[in-house]
């Protein structure tokens, strides 16, 4: 955790608040080496199943699709803040 503050406390708070049992963590490339540390801390503190998203994380628009089909209750995505869509979709 040298360069960026991962705010693990906020992540733990959200997991407890939502009662999520299975979560997916998504990290930008610069934070992917921290995945083990974040994963282990979340498992230890919340006793949840934590899956790590392997793919890209270019922005808040680039969230993994189809996670509910895999019974993921919560996605925690680092490195971005909420995205304000400019045009209506579809």
């Amino acid at each position, binding site marked *: 955790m*040298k360069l960026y503050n991962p*705010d693990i406390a906020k992540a733990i708070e959200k997991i407890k608040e939502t009662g999520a049992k299975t979560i997916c963590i998504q990290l930008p490339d610069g934070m992917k080496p921290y995945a083990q540390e974040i994963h282990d801390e979340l498992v230890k503190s919340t006793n949840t199943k934590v899956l790590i998203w392997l793919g890209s994380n270019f922005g808040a628009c680039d969230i993994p699709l189809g996670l509910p089909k895999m019974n993921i209750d*919560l996605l925690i995505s680092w490195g*971005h803040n909420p995205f304000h869509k400019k045009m209506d979709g579809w």
Partner: protein
Amino acid sequence: MDTLFLDAPFTGKVELCTETITYLKTHNITCIGLYASVQFVNNLDTIKSQLAKLNITIISSKADRTHVTSQLLGCDSELNALNLSSSEFNQIQSFLYIGDGRFHPYALVYAQKDLIATDVKPIICNDPISKKHTLTDINIIKSILRKYRASLMKFLVAKTIGVIVTIKPGQEHLKASYRLETKFPDKKFYFFLDDVVSFNQLENFPFIDVWVNTSCPRVGLDDQEKFTKGAINLNDAFMVREVLSKESVLMKI
């Protein structure tokens, strides 16, 4: 499913490096357009006071898709998305971007393709991680914009257009894409769906003269070379005549 976004702010000092300060002094910069990526944007106080000491006026804005003022996202790469008035833009001598990498500051390069009757502004990048300064000067900006101009011209004369629509949140622009058919009744449009843009599939559709990208706008800008037939973004397709008008910066570079 719930989603939580965490900014992951930079934990080090966010300040101007010596090289940036020297550049600002030697180029007599008195007004800058200040932007930063999310890791730095909530910690700009030191930089603002450094700029005040140099008597430099700061202009900034809340771009369309961002969450806070002065934040810069790669996708706010159209001039009107920056929400700067023309008088504010004219006052700015140079942009100052705080952050690392080229992805975010290049939104300011691409936004300048929409300029009318004014010249482009350089972008100073100050990276608080490496404590380094890099400059995207006017010549670099013009050379990037010229490549895109070629695709815009191609679109203007093309008869058969492939429109790529993707399903990521914030994209999904099928409805907006259909409006192209009304705007350009002399062109034939084919609409393609994809998860992400599959560049290696494009050559399987040789009947397409040029592509319109409706996914992340940066795909249509940064990945120009992967579209061998050329590609432009949806917004630019709608505005192509204005963007290529005589007064446009693209026609003067």
